[in-house]
C-alpha cells in the first residue's frame, strides 16, 4: 500500500511538472505580450523604453530560459522581493495576494457544487435503481440526460432570467450586497448569492453521478450478499443502507475524482456568467491579458487540484474496498 501510494505520488509529481512545461510553453507562445499591450494602450511609450522593458522581463529569451526563471520564482520567490509566484503585470500586485481571495471564492463555489451534486446525484441514483422502470426512474433518467446536455453558461443565463429577473428571488450575480453588516448577515448574504451559481455548476455532475449510481446500485442489489442480508431478516432500510449502498458507492469514488477537471471547467463558465470573482474568471482575464505569472499560478492550482483528488481517490478506494491490494 505504501509503495503503491509512493508510486502514485511520484506519478502525480511527474504529471504536474509535465503539465507546467506544456502550459508554460503554450502560454508564452500566444501572440502578443504585456509590453505590446502597454504600447497599444499608451502610444507615448518610447521604443527604447519598450526595448528595455522587454529585456527586463526577458520576453525575448528562449522558452526554456523563461521556464527556468519562472520555476525559480515559484520555488525561491521573486529575486527582488521574495514574493512567491512573482508579480501580476496587470494588477501590479504579488500573485499570492490576488490569488488568495479568488481562491477562497472559487472554493466556496466548488465545494458547494460538489456537495450538492454528490448528495442529490447519489440519492437520485439510489432511488432510481430501487424503483427500476417506474415513472420516477424514467423521469430521473431523462432529467439526468438533460443535465448532461445543457450548456452550463446558458443554464446560468436562463436561471438568472427566471430566478433573478422574472421572479426576483436571487441576485443576478456578484458575491455580496454592498453595505451588509459583517458576521452572520454577511454569511447569509454570501450563501444567498451562492445558490444560483452552485446549482448551475452542480447540474452536470449531479446528472453524471446519478446515472452511474443507478447502474452501480442495480448491479449491487442483485448480488448474493444482499440476498443474504435480506435472508437474515434485516429491515429493508438496513439492507439498502448498510449492505447495498456502501458497496455501490465504491466505483463512484473514482468517478468523483475524475469529475474534478470537469467541475473546474464548469467553474470558468459559471464564474463568467455570474461575475463571481474566482479563479476561473481570473484565468480567463490573465490569459487574454498575457499576465503569465497569474495564469500559470491558476493553471498550477487547477492541475494540483486534479492530481490531489486522483491521489485521494486511490487512497479512498483502497480503504473502502479491502479486496483491492495494490502491492
Amino acid at each position, binding site marked *: 500500500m505504501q509503495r503503491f501510494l509512493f508510486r502514485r505520488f511520484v*506519478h502525480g509529481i*511527474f*504529471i504536474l511538472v*509535465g*503539465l507546467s512545461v*506544456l*502550459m508554460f510553453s*503554450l*502560454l508564452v*507562445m*500566444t*501572440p502578443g505580450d504585456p509590453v505590446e499591450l502597454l504600447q497599444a494602450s499608451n502610444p507615448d511609450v518610447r521604443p527604447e523604453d519598450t526595448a528595455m522593458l522587454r529585456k527586463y522581463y526577458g520576453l525575448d529569451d528562449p522558452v526554456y530560459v523563461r521556464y527556468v526563471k519562472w520555476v525559480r520564482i515559484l520555488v525561491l520567490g521573486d529575486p527582488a522581493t521574495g514574493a512567491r509566484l512573482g508579480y501580476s503585470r496587470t494588477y501590479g500586485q504579488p500573485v499570492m495576494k490576488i490569488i488568495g481571495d479568488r481562491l477562497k471564492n472559487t472554493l466556496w463555489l466548488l465545494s458547494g457544487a460538489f456537495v450538492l451534486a454528490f448528495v442529490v446525484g447519489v440519492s437520485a441514483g439510489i432511488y432510481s435503481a430501487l424503483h427500476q422502470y417506474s415513472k420516477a426512474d424514467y423521469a430521473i*433518467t*431523462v432529467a439526468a*440526460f*438533460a443535465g*448532461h*446536455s*445543457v*450548456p*452550463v*453558461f*446558458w443554464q446560468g*443565463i*436562463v436561471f*438568472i*432570467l427566471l430566478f433573478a*429577473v422574472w421572479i426576483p428571488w436571487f441576485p443576478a450575480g456578484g458575491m455580496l450586497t454592498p453595505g451588509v453588516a459583517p458576521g452572520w448577515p454577511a454569511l447569509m448574504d454570501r450563501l444567498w448569492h451562492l445558490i444560483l451559481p452552485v446549482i448551475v455548476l452542480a447540474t452536470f455532475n449531479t446528472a453524471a453521478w446519478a*446515472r*452511474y449510481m443507478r*447502474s452501480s446500485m442495480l448491479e449491487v442489489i442483485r448480488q448474493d450478499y444482499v440476498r443474504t442480508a435480506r435472508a437474515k431478516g434485516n429491515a429493508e432500510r438496513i439492507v439498502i443502507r448498510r449492505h447495498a449502498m456502501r458497496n455501490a458507492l465504491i466505483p463512484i469514488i473514482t468517478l468523483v475524482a*475524475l469529475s*474534478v*477537471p*470537469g467541475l*473546474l*471547467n464548469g467553474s*470558468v*463558465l459559471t464564474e*463568467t*456568467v455570474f461575475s463571481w470573482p474566482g479563479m476561473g474568471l481570473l*484565468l*480567463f482575464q490573465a*490569459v*487574454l491579458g498575457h499576465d503569465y505569472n497569474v*495564469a500559470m499560478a*491558476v*493553471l498550477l492550482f*487547477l*492541475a494540483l487540484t*486534479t*492530481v490531489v483528488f*486522483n491521489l485521494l481517490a486511490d487512497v479512498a478506494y483502497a480503504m473502502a474496498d479491502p479486496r483491492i491490494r495494490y502491492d
Partner: protein
Amino acid sequence: MAQATPQQIALELERRRKEAAGVAIGQSYMQIAWRRFLKHRLALIGGTAAIALTLMAILAPWIAPHSFEKINLQERWVSPTLQNVFGTDELGRDVLTRIMFAGRISLVVGYVTAIAISISGALIGAVAGFYGGWVDNSLMRLVDILISVPVLPLYLILAALIPGGGVGRIVLIFTVFGWTTVARLVRGQILSLKSADFVEAGRAMGASEVRIILRHLIPNALAPVIVAATLTVGNAILAESGLSFLGLGIQPPTPSWGNMLTRAQEYLLKASWLAVFPGLFIFLTVLSFNFLGDGLRDALDPRLKT
C-alpha cells in the same frame, strides 16, 4: 408431430431462452443491434431529432423564413411574433433564420470533430495496443496527463495561440485534446483481440502489420468507437458553444450557436429571447446526440451498458 425428443426440447428451450434475452435466432450482428436499437425509445427520439436538426441546417438557405444577413434597423429587438417566431436581434435580423444558419457551423464542428477524434484516437489506440512496450507506455502516460487536466483552460490558451476564428481551428483544438477516450477504448479492444485466432491466421498468411491493424483489428473494435463518436458530436457542440460564449471560439460574422450567445447576457433585460433560443438549440441538439449515443451503446455493445 410425435413426442419431442430430449434434444429437440433442449433446442427449443435454448431458443426460448435466447428469445427472452432479446437475441434473435438466425440474424446477423447488425440485425440484432438494429432490433435492440428500435426498442430504445429515447434513442429513437434522439436519432429522429438529430436527423431533423441536421436537415434544418443543411436546408437553411432554402427553408429559412428571412434573409440571413439583411440588417433592418427599423425592426430591432422585435419580440417573438408570427412574423419573427423567435424575435429579432440588435440589428433587426430574424433570430430563427440566424439559428438555422448558425446550426450549420455548430453541427459541422460537431461532426468533423467526431470524425477527426475517431480516426486519430483509433489509430493511436491501435498502435499502442498492438505494439505494446514503450510505445504503449508513453502514449498511455500522455493519456493520463490529458485526462487529468481541466481542458477548458488549455482550450483558452490554444484559442489565444492559434489565429483565426474558423471551424478548422476549433476542430484542431478539440482533436488535440479529445483523442484520449477513443484511444483508450480501442487500445483495450486491441489488447484482447491481438492474440485472437483470426489475427494469427492473418499473420500466418503473411499479412503486414499495417494490414492486420487496419483490416482485422480496428474493424472489430469499431462498436465502442461509433458510440464514442456519437457522444463526441454533442460534446464538441457543447465545448464550441462555451468557447464561443467566452469570445474565443467561432468569430463573427460567422454565426454559431455559441457566439450568438456571447452578448446575450448584456441584452437579457431588453431581449430575453436572444438568450433563450440559440441556447435551446444547443441543448436540444446535444440531448439528441446523447440519447442516440446511449441507444447505440445498448444496441451495439450491451456489455458496456451503464
